[in-house]
């Protein structure tokens, strides 16, 4: 079975009614993944214990109150797990086995989800195409000559191909939303602090957030219900109460005030993408929302501010990969210093090295004020732009990415050009806001994503508006050739 026609509620009902079992679902899911893997290259490791875990869940009985009970899901390989290796798609973590599970993994397992495998990503989540993995290049199921976006390309692809109903990714500058856009699925980057990052291999600590990929908005809300909440292990996780994100999802958008920033429809955006977003705005008006053009004047500096700040944080976070305590170690070092340098120079890929060096430079004595502090000040201005718009709007809408999925190999030569892929998602990470991408159109057979941005901790509003759009359009019902019927 694939998951194109079934949402989590219907899969759950089948399990509760005994029409299928977790073992049966898990076996079918694994077979489905296996059948596509040569074309899609979405996984770095499979869970050998998946069927045995499903057996246990079946034996204990499906929990009728828990929609994830007995359901197969996949997770990005920068989330640590005890029973599967964790590589973050880097040679540096070859053969690394964590001694603990990420909090989100614990939460999924407590809900009875069966984690089927670990999905491919750009090395240490640095990239927008999943071509920067040290192991394989994941392909977009809509057209395997195109990329699935990144860095959570494996997690997006496996949901888009109907292999699993849900997966988890991480989003530092758009790494959930941009691949969701490229592969035509729903991807949510929750508010900074909403989900514990304990066990997520750190990239940019003031940006990183874990979130779900699903085929529908409501399924996504169910996943966030499961993974959200305070965790003593993560001092940045918020102790704000977690609402039931599915509760008010049917309330529609009547009376909702939605802002459309003019910067999000500027020259650098493909016409087909602009057309889709304008059509979506019209749809929202038909459904009773008000759409206002607004301005986010500092958004255009977001990419630069982000690369100064996130690269600096990355250069610090990645210091721990030194060949001593875990992971890869270079051979025949002359001395300890040589061991560090050799290990890091041969263990990291070029993109990671570039960002570490940019961060090292930004933090160096002569550059700190000019780049790092300046970027942090611009971060404040970007936050203030958002706050101003949210004074009298419930949501901001716009494109998720400037284009549809690009061809494999098309952008790997010019890093600065590649960084512009994230021009619309990055400001959201700088401000720590929740943002979601959902399918809003097609161009030449490739999906177009719409981004909905909310106030801090207002994921419910995003889900409500996303669900209303989904109920009145059929973009999410289309299936890619690979995996489709």
């Amino acid at each position, binding site marked *: 079975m694939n998951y194109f026609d079934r949402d989590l509620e219907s899969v759950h009902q089948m399990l509760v009614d005994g029409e299928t079992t977790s073992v049966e679902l898990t076996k079918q899911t694994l077979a489905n993944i296996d059948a596509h893997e040569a074309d899609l290259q979405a996984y770095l490791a499979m869970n050998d214990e998946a069927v045995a875990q499903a057996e246990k869940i079946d034996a204990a009985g499906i929990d009728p109150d828990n929609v994830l009970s007995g359901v197969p899901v996949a997770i990005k390989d920068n989330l640590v797990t005890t029973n599967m290796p964790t590589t973050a798609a880097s040679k540096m973590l070859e053969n690394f086995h964590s001694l603990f599970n990420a909090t989100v993994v614990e939460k999924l397992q407590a809900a009875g989800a069966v984690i089927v495998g670990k999905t491919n990503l750009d090395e240490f989540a640095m990239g927008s195409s999943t071509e920067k993995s040290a192991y394989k290049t994941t392909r977009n199921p809509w057209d395997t000559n195109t990329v699935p976006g990144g860095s959570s390309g494996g997690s997006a692809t496996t949901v888009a191909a109907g292999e699993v109903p849900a997966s988890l990714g991480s989003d530092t500058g758009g790494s959930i939303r941009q691949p969701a856009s490229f592969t035509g699925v729903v991807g949510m980057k929750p508010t900074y602090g909403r989900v514990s990052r304990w066990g997520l291999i750190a990239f940019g600590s*003031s940006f990183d957030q874990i979130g779900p990929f699903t085929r529908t908005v409501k399924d996504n809300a169910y996943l966030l219900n499961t993974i959200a909440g305070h965790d003593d292990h993560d001092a940045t996780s918020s102790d704000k109460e977690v609402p039931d994100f599915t509760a008010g999802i049917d309330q529609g958008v009547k009376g909702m005030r939605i802002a459309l920033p003019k910067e999000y429809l500027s020259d650098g955006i493909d016409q087909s993408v602009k057309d889709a977003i304008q059509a979506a705005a019209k749809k929202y008006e038909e459904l009773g929302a008000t759409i206002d053009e607004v301005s986010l004047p500092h958004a255009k500096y977001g990419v630069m501010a982000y690369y100064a700040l996130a690269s600096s944080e990355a250069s610090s976070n990645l210091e721990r990969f030194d060949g001593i305590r875990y992971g890869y170690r270079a051979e025949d070092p002359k001395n300890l210093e040589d061991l560090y340098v050799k290990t890091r120079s041969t263990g990291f890929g070029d993109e990671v090295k570039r960002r570490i060096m940019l961060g090292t430079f*930004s933090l160096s004595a002569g550059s700190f004020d000019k780049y790092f502090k300046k970027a942090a*000040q611009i971060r*404040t201005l970007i936050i203030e732009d958002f706050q101003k718009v949210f004074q009298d709007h419930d949501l901001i809408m716009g494109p998720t990415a400037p284009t549809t999925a690009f061809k494999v190999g098309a952008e790997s030569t010019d890093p600065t050009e590649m960084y512009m892929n994230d021009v619309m998602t990055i400001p959201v990470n700088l401000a720590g806001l929740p943002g979601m991408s959902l399918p809003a159109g097609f161009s030449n057979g490739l999906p177009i994503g719409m981004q909905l941005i909310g106030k801090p901790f207002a994921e419910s509003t995003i889900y409500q508006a996303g669900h209303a759009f989904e109920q009145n359009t059929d973009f999410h019902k289309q299936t890619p050739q690979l995996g489709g019927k």
Partner: protein
Amino acid sequence: MSEKVDQARTQHIAGLAKLKIADAELDQFTEQLNDMLDMLDQLGTVDTEGVEPTYSVTDQINVMRPDVANNWGERDALLRNAPESVDGLIRVPTIIDESEDE
């Protein structure tokens, strides 16, 4: 494009990060680093006089927990991840190379 870092400076920055760029790649890395720094230079066009920098967006301030020792008891499992270990300790190459002492 004005060159901000030359090859020697690129190698110096790499050195600070405990990296070494291979000679064959030094040209490309230097060029890309300059491109990225050109991009970052646009930050300088924004007036930020008197603007407080934001380094974190969490609503959590001064998170405290009781200082309780937790003996994890996982030494052997931890050492299995180390590339080299001996007698319950991580083995590293010589730190002080006495042969260089003249």
